[in-house]
């Protein structure tokens, strides 16, 4: 990781894509609506029991990234006008799981 934030500060401007050489179990992805990145929205990570673990605002490219742990996780996206989508994935140490999520906004 370069420029890892100290404290609870998120990286300025949201996520940045780097190679996963850190041994972390990364879940990342992008959210689109009609092919365009969703810029206003939130991605939340739920654990295997459906409990909330973390949430990030989507980056300018509709992107999100979580540093998870090995296991099964659900990513749920909230966007304006009630748009929702979720997907369950598994994560492994040293591996980046990449999602492409599409939402329909009314």
């Amino acid at each position, binding site marked *: *990781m370069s420029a*890892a*934030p100290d*404290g*609870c*500060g*998120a*990286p*300025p*401007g*949201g996520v940045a894509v780097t190679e996963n050489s*850190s041994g*972390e179990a990364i879940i990342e992805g992008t959210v689109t609506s009609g092919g365009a990145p969703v810029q*206003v929205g*939130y991605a939340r*990570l739920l*654990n295997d*029991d459906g*409990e*909330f*673990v*973390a*949430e*990030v*605002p989507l980056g300018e490219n509709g992107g*999100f*990234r*979580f*540093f*998870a*742990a090995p296991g099964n996780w659900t990513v749920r996206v*909230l*966007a*304006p*006008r009630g748009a929702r989508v979720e997907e369950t994935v598994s994560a492994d140490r040293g591996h980046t799981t990449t999602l492409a999520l599409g939402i329909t906004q009314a």
Partner: protein
Amino acid sequence: MSRSDVLVDADWVEAHLGDPGVVLVEVDEDTSAYDKGHIANAVKVDWKKDLQDPVRRDFIDKHGFEELMSARGISSDDLVILYGGNNNWFAAYAYWYFRLYGHANVKLLDGGRKKWELDSRDLVTQVPNRARTSYRAGDQDASLRAFRDEVVAAIGQRNLVDVRSPDEFSGKLLAPAHLPQEQAQRAGHIPTAKNVPWSKAANDDGTFKSDDDLRKLYGDEAGLDFARDTIAYCRIGERSAHTWFVLHELLGQANVKNYDGSWTEYGSLVGVPIELGAGR
């Protein structure tokens, strides 16, 4: 204390954001969020640059807080409305911080920035120009802030509420899952702490659950003894400020402290007891 003494909703903010004596303050986890767009007339406070001492691990002192408020054009008797991203984590932290320095008239925007954005309400990039004030702060209110020795002494004696996610509590993760895994030397939780993730107190849109639901959550489900004093902690004290707000401000519990040293301090202390697993 009733909800309206400590919370406002988005409609109220839209109706009052230009009122004299009302100051909107955005405090975010991602400190660049304000620059990309904020509620009209809101000023920015950077939870790290503005509220933390740049050298020691501590808050800025009373004089520093007075200088910060004065420079932002905030008066001691202004009604300060705090809001921010990530379900108001850092706005709740700032709320607790304002209370710590004796600012009487402060409220949270229920749902914070997220609800505002999900409602598709307006955000602007124009930064307001507020005239400098001469802010007077109080001394830090010691009844609101817990330090490490007090926390160690509270094991088995007081309610300890660990508001981190279950995986941080059990020792599976050291930090929230949207941040790199780093910080404390050891994972786990303080023995006898109950795990009530802060998120259980909030709806999906970031607003607080009803008082009845909250009382059920901490009392019936978590088994918190409301007659006992309580210390809340998380990793660096921001999520636990959210829970402090729920217990102290919404449910009116007396003697609730936030341990801002939290797991980054406790999990690095030599010789203190640590418990692993899901807790009891």
